[in-house]
């Protein structure tokens, strides 16, 4: 991506400005980082329901008689496991097995797929995939015409029923469904990036404001990228660009569950070799033990006096009352309970390797 390129604006930009959201540049878009406050928005999503603008994310459509075969040669997970209406988390790798992007692939119909990709990677993914197109496959980037909203929280399903339950039953977890409106198609995906139940709602850009206002009127609290980041970090979900990179494989990132090595795909040979030779590092969760400053990405991680890695993500965890982070660590240190330190402005603070997810939902009282 070109950092000097002019910022793009979400179809919801005016809505954000009207309510005084703080806007920041993110992945080439001007996006709301917070409305009322990150911690408050975070806790609202855990306790009730919040709504995030995800219009920056990319939407690709893949169709044609060879769509499944072609995608299966590019993506780590196996699309043959899906039936129409189902989706799966998957990754797009380079030849070295490094991560280009992580995405969700949904089967709309036999040989018709819908992909939701990261905003920062729309162009790169599209160029990478286009360069590998084969006969019998059509790939379309329809990111611009779609606005997106993620409605997340324990009350998301109830909100959905009031919003559009009459048009389409809420899909099952990881599922997808669509319905038509006069302005165009609306796509509902039962997924999210917060660890809470919820759905992602993609609609024609021109109708975004109207849907947003309805969702807010039904009780969702507007939540920004700040809360989105603390929520996903508490779940140990990786963020591409921080926790995933072209130099690390999904096996190192602990995403082997989403990699099917029984089929060939770009990068699979590198992963097979890595599996045979042993992983050079593993993505671990760490927790600040000392009272100290919040962990942040790029802080060095030390074992004794030697630097053994750096934090790829870090931040406060509003649901846990502490600070957490993630780091790629050599296998001998990548075990729960290992004590290390993080260097912050020249001082060392004790951290410990802990299990992911950091946050576990308390059992719901009935």
């Amino acid at each position, binding site marked *: 991506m070109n950092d000097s390129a002019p910022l793009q604006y979400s179809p919801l930009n005016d809505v954000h400005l009207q309510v005084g959201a*703080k806007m920041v540049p993110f992945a080439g878009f001007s996006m709301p*980082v*917070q409305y009322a*406050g*990150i*911690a*408050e928005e975070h806790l609202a999503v855990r306790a009730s329901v919040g709504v995030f603008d995800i219009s920056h994310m990319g939407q690709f459509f893949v169709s044609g008689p060879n769509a499944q075969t072609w995608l299966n040669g590019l993506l780590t997970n196996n699309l043959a496991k899906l039936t129409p209406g189902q989706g799966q988390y998957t990754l797009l790798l380079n030849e070295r097995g490094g991560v280009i992007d992580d995405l969700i692939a949904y089967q709309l119909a036999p040989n018709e797929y819908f992909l939701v990709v990261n905003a920062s990677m729309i162009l790169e993914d599209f160029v990478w995939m286009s360069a590998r197109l084969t006969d019998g496959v059509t790939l379309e980037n329809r990111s611009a015409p779609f606005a997106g909203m993620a409605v997340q929280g324990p009350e998301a399903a109830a909100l959905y029923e009031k919003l559009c339950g009459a048009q389409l039953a809420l899909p099952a977890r990881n599922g997808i469904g669509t319905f038509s409106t006069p302005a165009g198609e609306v796509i509902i995906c039962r997924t999210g990036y917060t660890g809470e139940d919820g759905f992602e709602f993609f609609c024609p850009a021109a109708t975004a404001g109207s849907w947003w206002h309805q969702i807010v009127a039904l009780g969702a609290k507007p939540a920004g990228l*700040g809360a989105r980041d*603390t929520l996903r970090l508490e779940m140990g979900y990786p963020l591409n660009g921080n926790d995933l990179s072209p130099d690390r494989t999904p096996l190192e990132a602990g995403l082997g569950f989403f990699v099917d090595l029984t089929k060939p795909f770009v990068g699979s040979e590198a992963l097979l070799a890595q599996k045979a030779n042993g992983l050079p590092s593993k993505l671990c969760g760490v927790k600040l033990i000392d009272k*100290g*400053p*919040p962990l*942040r990405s790029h802080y060095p991680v030390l074992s004794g006096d030697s630097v053994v890695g750096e934090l790829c993500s870090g*931040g*406060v965890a*509003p649901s846990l009352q502490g600070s957490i982070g993630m780091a790629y660590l050599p296998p001998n240190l990548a075990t729960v309970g290992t004590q290390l330190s993080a260097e912050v*402005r020249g001082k060392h603070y004790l951290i410990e390797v802990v299990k992911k997810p950091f946050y576990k939902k308390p059992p719901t009282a009935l």
Partner: protein
Amino acid sequence: MPNSSELRFARSHEWITPGSAIATVGISEHAQAELGDVVYLELPDVGRVVKAEEAVAVVESVKAASDIYSPVDGEIVEVNTAATNETSLVNTAPYEGGWLFKIKVSNPAQIEAMMTEAAYLEFVG
């Protein structure tokens, strides 16, 4: 604690009390609103001698770590340990309980040269 209209303000969003040998320093209402929820404070050691515009403290919000600069030359004589224990004071009472440190001022003219509240509010728009 003073009324904010009596304070002087730095372009880097600190405020300072004018008119006494020991001045109190904090961050502005505008700054706390921009930073969001403050979760950690790193304040200077008492006795440290500092220069104007030297980074002397760090205010960490959920979003980011931000350096705080001394508005003037002087010596740190006290830090607000109540605020390090209860960092939300910086958000809820930036001109009162959320002050950061007190400094023995070497050159009071440096304070007089800073912005009044009216000028500062104009500056931040």
